[in-house]
């Protein structure tokens, strides 16, 4: 049994502000937010991939498989990276080395983390390529990345990430660059592999459709803070935070009336003009004086928590009206 929990509390120059979350083995956590909300920075920090000196971790710790990890210890992180903890990136073309055959690139990861012969590494790579649904895998092993389509490249990336049976997979917008029909195939593949291997997955995305498809738990991020978190079902059926609600009303729907879309007015504030207190206050239609104080992430039961002074909105606003 691999049961692990993971906690991260970081604040590189307060870009990320006291973020906590956990993933269980075999489950998927989706981190949702718009560009610039800090979701990618968080995942890079977890992998220890932030360029040295670019950011300082102000606070926080990560517990991975029962061990407390020092994020600044490069050697320790290197051992974990690619074996226990792996990552898939958004752009499969730029994350594969164009000058090496894909079979060799996958085998390299095996050789780096396992004590085995080249032949064994080759066999292992071939098996995983077959598993991710690459047709004629033996022939493809000798192909270069440019010979594959976008969907195939993403499959290769997944193969590379999974070849060492990781306990945690971090996927940063894995399907954003793909067409919908291919996206559906890739999501299905990730889900199947997850049930098979019981790994935990952190999926970073801005697409609420993808979230509904794959998430067990959801964390909604806004300007470096988690504003709402909980089981996927609660987030979609009973959203509490004005940002979550605004985000959901902005999505064009495939059913229902086609009138004007509600929007979230304004833009995400940058670190330079970050408002005091609730970071969403500048764009929130319900903002009031109290919002200059930072709202705590208050639990609502069943693991659902929201950082808003006014939750639940309907009762609070009625009282004040």
């Amino acid at each position, binding site marked *: 049994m691999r049961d692990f929990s993971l906690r991260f509390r970081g604040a590189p120059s307060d870009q990320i502000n006291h973020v906590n979350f956990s993933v269980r083995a075999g489950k998927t956590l989706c981190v949702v937010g718009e560009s610039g909300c800090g979701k990618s920075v968080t995942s890079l920090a977890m992998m220890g991939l932030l360029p040295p000196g670019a950011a300082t971790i102000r606070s926080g710790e990560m517990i991975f498989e029962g061990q407390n990890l020092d994020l600044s210890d490069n050697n320790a992180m290197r051992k974990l990276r690619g074996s226990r903890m792996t990552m898939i990136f958004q752009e499969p073309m730029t994350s594969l080395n164009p000058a090496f055959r894909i079979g060799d690139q996958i085998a390299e990861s095996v050789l780096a983390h396992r004590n085995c012969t080249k032949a064994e590494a080759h066999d292992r790579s071939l098996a995983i390529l077959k598993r991710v649904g690459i047709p004629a895998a033996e022939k493809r092993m000798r192909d270069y990345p440019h010979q594959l389509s976008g969907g195939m490249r993403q499959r290769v990336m997944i193969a590379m990430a999974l070849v060492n049976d990781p306990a945690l997979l971090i996927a940063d917008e894995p399907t954003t660059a793909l067409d919908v*029909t291919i996206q559906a195939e890739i999501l299905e593949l990730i889900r199947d592999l997850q049930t098979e291997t019981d790994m935990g997955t952190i999926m970073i995305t801005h697409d609420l459709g993808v979230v509904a498809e794959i998430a067990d738990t959801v964390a909604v991020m806004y300007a470096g803070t988690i504003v709402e978190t909980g089981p996927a079902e609660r987030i979609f059926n009973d959203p509490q935070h004005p940002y979550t609600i605004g985000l959901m009303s902005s999505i064009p729907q495939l059913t229902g009336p086609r009138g004007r879309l509600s929007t979230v007015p304004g833009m995400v504030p940058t670190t330079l003009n970050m408002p005091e207190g609730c970071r969403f206050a500048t764009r929130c239609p319900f903002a009031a004086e109290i919002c200059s104080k930072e709202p705590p992430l208050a639990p609502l039961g069943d693991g659902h928590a929201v950082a808003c002074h006014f939750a639940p909105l309907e009762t609070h606003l009625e009282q004040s009206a």
Partner: protein
Amino acid sequence: MSDTILTARGLKKHFKTGGGMAKSGTVRAVDDVSFDVRRGETFAIVGESGCGKSTLARLLMRLLTPTDGDVEFDGIDVRSLKGRDLTALRRDMQFVFQDPFSSLNPRMSVGKLVGEPLETHFPQMSATERRGKVAALLAKVGLRPEHAERYPHEFSGGQRQRIGIARALASAPKLVIGDEPVSALDVSVQAQVINLLGDLRDELGLTLVIIAHDLAVIRHMSDRVAVMYLGQIVEQGDVDTVFTQPRHPYTRALLSAIPVAAHGERAPRKALEGEMPSPANPPSGCRFHTRCPYAQARCKTDNPALRATDVAEGHVAACHFFEVIAADEPDLGLADAPKRAPGAAARFALYEDAMRERATPRPRQDQE
């Protein structure tokens, strides 16, 4: 004035590839495409990457010359236009590009960028007049007049897209073609731009042709839609018809592949096998037969023509067997509106009210 503003007839664009040492061949990016766009409507062209939709848009604008076929805009044959007449066409037909980061010259101020088409198309306009017009255009797309002094890098993606729209509107076009106008934007900003395009269409009596891959966006913005696969239109009709009662197997697959942002049981989807074949070497017969779950022997040899369906007037699909498939397969019946907790429904209503209140005193301004 006729009801049809833009007509494409048997439009083809073939690109030669290779040459030199490489094996040469022909990419049939657009292969025999015909459609009409009616005055004042929003016509959408949807398809996955590589289906030829962007090439088609460029053919309509005469940014590319078609290999064969005709485009008629407002009664004028676009194909034979040259010189001054072509400039006049570009005035009446404008383009909004996908990428708001690379389609604006970083060394020109916003005032220059929006004023440039005015200079080209209305050379008699004085500088003062032009400045006034630029300010009016900026206000129209929800930017402030003082933004004219700034440069593109000072703006966010959504604002840059607004600048692109202002630029397209400067020459007072009759038709605007948008090639993925919102796909590079975040959802909340995307919604703002979708609303803006809809408002401008109603206000200025524009006709819009929207090219996109996001079906939900298309459903929201357009009246009629054409679905493209490998350079050909496979289905066309009113948006509501195509989305609720699709007839072509590709449209069905496309619609069932969209993840819906609502929690709950989903219908088992029929995922498509494999990927789109290369347009340099399209399959024989029906181009979709290599991925079609219903393909039969005939599909490998005969390329089906677009035929009228019995679903609605003007709805056509290119499939030999759509009646048979429709008889076996129930209509998709897209998921109902999300079931929300009563409290949540009240919250959504509150949010919408708050948004409307915000919007009324200053229509469309400063939303960003």
